């Protein structure tokens, strides 16, 4: 098989926390706990999971915007973490972010044109004319009008601001675009505009997306493969069809069953699984499966409380980390 665009191996990220008594050993939040995945060129990989499950932290660590505790991240086969400063700067430009909040992620004092062209200025020495042409092209591609180039962020609506964020992210033709909840702050009608735009741009420029969202309907529409995270771990990894039509992990099943749907057939077919209890304390991870405390099918005799289950193969493109699966 050809090398994937991005490969992440055994990534771990821990955050030190001050809590309890000063003479006790430092405690860590295991925000990302031994996560591995690949992304192929031109595809969209989705990361889903509840708040605090480690989605954003994974993305930040992949782009080396935060330090990881352990693990390897390769872009085009080269180890990202071993690069010297200058090569890292250039390589990092190959990964761009689109953030959730189109309000706070744009510098209010810069014009739209200036914001959008920033990644190009950092990267290479382009002439004024080349720069202006790139900006014009990208404004056109994301559906902003040329006369809007001179406006400041507060003069745009939420959806337009997100278009500026998208233009900034793709102007330097990055290899990987990380979209962290790109439409969660937007109204549904504007959401549709932005989601259609992201898919159009992907086709047009052969973009690769790492797409984070807590909205499973959106994920279903946008992603080719999906990793489901729970408390820093990937508990299920699958192509889109199998994940949504036959989820295997008890958490994924509960998650999908909890999504309210307008489709009456779905409401009749999918039995709602209501989880009891709250997610466990990330500071005191349990030794076994992280989901065990809330799992409706937890079973001590198959090992749920001993060790985190390994990812098992369901099919060629579907894996699940659950002891119950083989039973």
């Amino acid at each position: 098989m050809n090398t994937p665009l991005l490969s992440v191996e055994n990534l771990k990220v821990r955050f030190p926390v001050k809590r309890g008594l000063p003479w006790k050993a430092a405690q860590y939040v295991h925000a990302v706990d031994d996560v591995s995945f690949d992304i192929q060129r031109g595809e969209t990989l989705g990361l889903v999971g509840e708040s605090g499950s480690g989605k954003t932290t994974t993305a930040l660590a992949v782009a080396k915007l935060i330090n990881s505790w352990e693990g390897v991240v390769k872009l085009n086969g080269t180890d990202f973490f071993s690069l010297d400063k200058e090569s890292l700067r250039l390589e990092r430009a190959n990964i761009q972010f689109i953030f959730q909040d189109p309000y706070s992620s744009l510098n209010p004092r810069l014009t739209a044109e200036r914001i959008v062209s920033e990644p190009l200025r950092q990267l290479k020495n382009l002439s004024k004319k080349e720069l202006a042409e790139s900006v014009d092209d990208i404004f056109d591609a994301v559906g902003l009008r040329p006369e809007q180039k001179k406006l400041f962020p507060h003069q745009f609506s939420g959806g337009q601001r997100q278009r500026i964020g998208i233009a900034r992210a793709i102007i330097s033709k990055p290899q990987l675009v990380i979209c962290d909840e790109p439409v969660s702050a937007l109204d549904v009608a504007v959401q549709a505009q932005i989601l259609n735009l992201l898919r159009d741009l992907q086709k047009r420029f052969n973009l690769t997306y790492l797409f984070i969202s807590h909205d499973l309907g959106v994920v279903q529409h946008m992603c080719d493969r999906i990793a489901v995270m729970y408390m820093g771990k990937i508990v299920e990894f699958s192509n889109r069809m199998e994940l949504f039509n036959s989820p295997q992990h008890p958490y994924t099943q509960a998650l999908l069953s909890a999504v309210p749907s307008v489709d009456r057939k779905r409401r009749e077919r999918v039995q709602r699984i209501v989880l009891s209890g709250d997610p466990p304390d990330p500071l005191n991870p349990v030794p076994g499966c992280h989901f065990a405390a809330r799992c409706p099918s937890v079973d001590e005799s198959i090992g749920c409380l001993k060790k985190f289950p390994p990812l098992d193969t369901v099919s060629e493109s579907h894996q699940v980390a659950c002891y119950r699966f083989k039973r």
Partner: protein
Amino acid sequence: MNDSFRSQNKPALLKVQNLTIELTTRLGTAPVIDDVSFELHEGETLCFVGESGCGKSMTALALMGLLPEKVSRIASGSIEFNGVDVTQASADFLNQLRGNELSMIFQEPMTSLNPVFTVGEQIAEVLRHHQGVDKSTGVKLATQLLDQVKIPEAHRRVHSFPHELSGGQRQRVMIAMALACQPKLLIADEPTTALDVTVQAQIFDLLDELQKEHNTAIMLITHDMGVVAEMAERMVVMYAGRKIEEGPVDEVLQQPAHPYTRGLIACVPHLQAFMHEERVPLLEVPGVVPSLNQFGGNQCLFADRCDQVNERCLNNRPENKYTNQRSVACWYPTAEGVFL
């Protein structure tokens, strides 16, 4: 004439008629709620949907008698609760109503809980204020209420401060507080938007259960059509301060009459019973909700986003047409057979 539906057998618990609320901002005065009528019966759930800024929260605040002072006023119309017009009621009467018969859950529980008191003390205070229960009895009752809303280890949690609880737990505390006095009407303004879907499912389950037990009427504000489908019997779609569609949920979702309702349903990638390999582009509703200073114009305020727009839409405000349980405000409604 009365714009609302004819009452069913029992008189409505809540009857809002031709309510208009004016809001004054830097740009002038505009009807943030514009001639809105609807009814709600005991034990019923009515959902309000629409994009941001359409007046959903304002409607809720008006019912609670909590409209922002000075900048807003009830310009016309009435809000009858249990037969009493609350727009004419005294402050004392309203105060007595709130928390006893009428309760509200807000979107962000952290802003409505007091950070310096334990949740037990806060629930006890509500009970004291409205039912004259003393403090120690109040805390005992609070523990029971927390248990009822399924907070684990309620006897311990009752002494927690709000910041020591998770978002879902805080929202459950808010529900416990809203239910402390067994209200006849519970208004929930996007009670789960900040929560994970699995927690949302827990909260909705809880609301369902409590409604069945006490026959509470629920007015649920949401922007999620899936939530509407699962939770409500009837729905009202708001646009730019106006009620543009109303009807039984199943009917409206299957045959939306207003182009805006149709857009709201189709622009979202919903989970379906069976997923298909093929993904078609989402239907787009171009543009955005008009700003407040455009509210109130004598035209259809959706006109600049509508694919069916016509002369008439631009020069005349569409009246609400009523037929058999449904209502729409559009010159060219689409639900075939319903409004033709």
